[in-house]
């Protein structure tokens, strides 16, 4: 996306809620580190955060072999790292060797393993590399996004000494860190800020041939409290604010004109909140009461009634102040490339929910409590993250909605990691509210969620004895779309997955919150996107209309 021609200079002040923990792209686990690394590094093929499609980055062009297993990438010539050293195919080969090294445990390694086998990279000449995939892979081009190319000259000696994982910590002197991104590290002050300065060797130019980036500096302040972050943006101490809450957005809206900033509601992102029941196989565990309740949770009619009883529009209205979308399927309307528009949207219908339960053999006591066919009152707890205000409010509203159909639901707030411990390790929960999101819109990243033996198949993580036909179909479809290379066929397969999820409700999708951000009006080329980094994805093109 070509932006407006800008002016050189100026300092952009942004904020992050947590401090970056490392500047090493291989070992970075947290979002803030990845955001900062994204500004100081570049990849071979990049996902455009605005169009969601792929675009040339350090690879100026690429070709796929007819069988879809071989990708030949031609690299840009004359590109230099931020320390002035030239970039070539050796850097690419070294980078992928490092990412794939089992000893380094890079979280991005999984991306490069296809059907259990790693992709192979080969240098053809100084500016051409070939990647060989074990099988055709639909999202192969997208694999290269966010794999930061590392300087072989600087890091290979450390790699040989087995010290690569410890390289590029926060206290590493800036001159020892080199990347291919629009900025480079200038200063890090523990607990306060990280300052990036423009990379004088950056390879991108604007439409008039001027070298990017326009900005002289980006200062990233650490402001851990969301309210303080909002207030400091309002006070003018920061120029950009990401991940605004609906409440924060409403507060700032009042001062939008007076304080010279503009707020953006760019619609739903990729994240969605959902409710799910514990249907793990608990036979070998002493969790008797949950095992009994699983007879309800495993019934489609029960899940359907719960889904129908939940007033999603009220959640949108009251929890998100209208800045979210009610969801009936797991792909948000923000994911325009993959959302199945044919999925019917439902309505809150307590009477309909009662009808479904009645047909499934449930009945009501005189005091209105729902009783199961074995004459036990229907009651369960809903686990949610105590640190997430929206989820807390959602749980309370769901509790009230379920009361309408005679179900006693108890909202149980739990500290986030304790909640994850119950969901992933001990399975001591009945139902839970969670949110899932990922850095890409492609269905491939959700393989672990929807395939029955996936590690993020949160509602049922135990080994399965027998799959239901729809689960088998989801497994087959997800594996098929993985190797189907043309978009329309993949879309058909994934549309079917969405329909199966909607019909069988392994999870009950609730809402997809909007991406809310704010920025000073004087920032040019500011086009927030639904993919992370929402605000600075085109940092090289941002400029200040009035230089400080």
């Amino acid at each position, binding site marked *: 996306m070509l932006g407006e021609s800008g002016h050189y200079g100026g300092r952009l002040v942004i904020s992050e809620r947590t401090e970056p923990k490392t500047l090493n792209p291989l070992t970075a686990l947290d979002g803030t580190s990845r955001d900062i690394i994204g500004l100081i590094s570049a990849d071979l093929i990049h996902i455009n955060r605005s169009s969601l499609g792929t675009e040339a980055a350090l690879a100026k062009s690429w070709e796929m072999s007819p069988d879809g297993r071989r990708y030949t990438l031609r690299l840009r010539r004359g590109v230099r790292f931020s320390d002035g050293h030239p970039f070539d195919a050796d850097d690419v080969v070294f980078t992928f060797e490092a990412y794939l090294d089992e000893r380094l445990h890079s979280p991005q390694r999984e991306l490069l393993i296809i059907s259990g086998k790693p992709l192979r990279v080969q240098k053809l000449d100084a500016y051409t590399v070939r990647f060989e995939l074990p099988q055709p892979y639909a999202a192969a081009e997208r694999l290269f996004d966010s794999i930061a190319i590392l300087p072989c000259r600087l890091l290979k000696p450390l790699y040989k000494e087995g010290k690569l994982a410890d390289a590029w910590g926060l206290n590493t002197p800036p001159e020892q860190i080199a990347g291919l991104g629009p900025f480079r590290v200038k200063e890090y*002050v523990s607990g306060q800020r990280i300052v990036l300065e423009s990379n004088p060797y950056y390879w991108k130019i604007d439409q008039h041939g001027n070298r990017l980036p326009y900005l002289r500096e980006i200062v990233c302040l650490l402001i*851990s409290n969301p309210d303080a972050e909002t207030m400091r943006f309002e006070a003018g101490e920061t120029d950009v604010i990401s991940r605004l809450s609906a409440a924060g957005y409403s507060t700032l809206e009042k001062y939008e004109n007076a304080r010279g900033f503009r707020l953006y509601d760019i619609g739903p992102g990729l994240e969605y909140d959902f409710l799910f029941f514990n249907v793990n196989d608990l036979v070998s565990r002493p969790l008797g009461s949950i095992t009994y309740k699983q007879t309800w949770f495993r019934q489609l009619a029960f899940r359907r009634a719960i889904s129908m009883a939940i007033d999603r529009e009220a959640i949108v209205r009251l929890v998100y102040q209208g800045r979210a979308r009610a969801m009936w399927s797991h792909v948000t309307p923000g994911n325009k490339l993959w959302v199945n528009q044919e999925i019917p949207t439902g309505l809150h219908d307590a009477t309909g929910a009662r009808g479904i339960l009645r047909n499934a053999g449930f009945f009501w006591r005189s005091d209105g409590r729902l009783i199961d066919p074995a004459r036990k009152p229907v009651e369960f707890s809903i686990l949610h993250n105590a640190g997430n205000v929206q989820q807390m409010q959602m749980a309370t509203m769901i509790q009230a909605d379920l009361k309408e159909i005679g179900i006693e639901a108890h909202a149980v707030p739990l*500290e986030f990691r*304790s909640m994850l411990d119950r969901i992933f390790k001990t399975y001591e929960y009945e139902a839970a509210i*969670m949110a899932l999101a990922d850095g890409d819109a492609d269905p491939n990243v959700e393989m*672990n969620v929807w395939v029955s033996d996936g590690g*993020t198949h949160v509602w049922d993580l135990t080994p399965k004895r027998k799959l239901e036909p729809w689960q088998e179909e989801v497994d087959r479809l997800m594996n098929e779309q993985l190797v189907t290379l043309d978009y329309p066929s993949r879309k058909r397969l994934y549309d079917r997955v969405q329909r199966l999820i909607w019909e069988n409700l392994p999870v009950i999708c609730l809402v997809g919150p909007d991406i809310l951000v704010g920025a000073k009006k004087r920032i040019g080329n500011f086009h927030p996107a639904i993919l992370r980094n929402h605000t600075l994805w085109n940092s090289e093109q941002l400029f200040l209309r009035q230089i400080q």
Partner: protein
Amino acid sequence: MARYFARRILSSLLLLVSVSILSFVLLEFAPGDFYETLRLNPRVSEATVNALRSQHGVNSSLPVRYFRWVHSVSKGEWGYSLAYDSPAAPILWTRAKNTLLLTGTAMILAWIIAIPFGTWGAARRGKAPDWFVRGTTSILLAIPDLVLALLLVLCAVRSGYFPAGGMVSFDFSEMSLWAKFRDLFRHLFLPCLCLAASSFPVLLSHTRTAVLEVLESPFITAARGYGIPVRRLLFRHALPAAANPLISLFGVSIGVLLSSSVLIEVIFGWPGLGQLLLEAILQRDFFLVIDSAMLATAFLVSGNLIADVLLYACDPRVRAN
């Protein structure tokens, strides 16, 4: 004297060892670990998460982890931060210095105000100044720290006189020495005021009560009879006699220097130990949590020790015993 302090130091060391063991045992019961959230990333497999756990010894037994930590303390590293992927000591020291700057300044401010006002209130018992002192104390005690901090941040945002958070401006390194001092003062003012306001009522009440008790003693009545001026009577005779409880309280003030500002640091974005500790607890970055607990305990122990030394120096009765 030397034997007494040697015994105190030895018992302090034993206390520190006990706290370290207790911290390890208690944290063992905390559900979840640092790598748990990685499971939420659909791109990261369970195998990778488990490999990371093994690599950093998260799965090792409690004694193994404890002795590894002791070994690392002996090397001056104080354990390993999983989040920062680096030894904990440098991370802790930088933050601890910032916390001490904030809490130390707030403590000095609170004492400087509390002592004259407490003495003044006691000297004018039942009169307007006393009512003023007691009223102020009650109001400050009634306002929760959180509310006061948020109000101050809001004032800063609306007025623009003070920065709404942080420790220094981002162009601090480019400033002249005087500008640096002013910048630091402007950032320090509100969180310091907030901290001082929360400890001030307690100090003031103690000072007032202690001085009041002394003012009723016969030697003060005798001194009054000799015609000693009121100010001299209060500050040269009454206040030193009332020093014992205040010295003990001073010891406590030193003891909580590292642990009293967690909330204020988070709200004002002060880059101290409080923010680091909160983040470490939420992330289960256990060594940072244990180190913070150890530092806080060390300060508490030192605070008590300092109070004992001061009591020994000031009170002949303690020396006699």
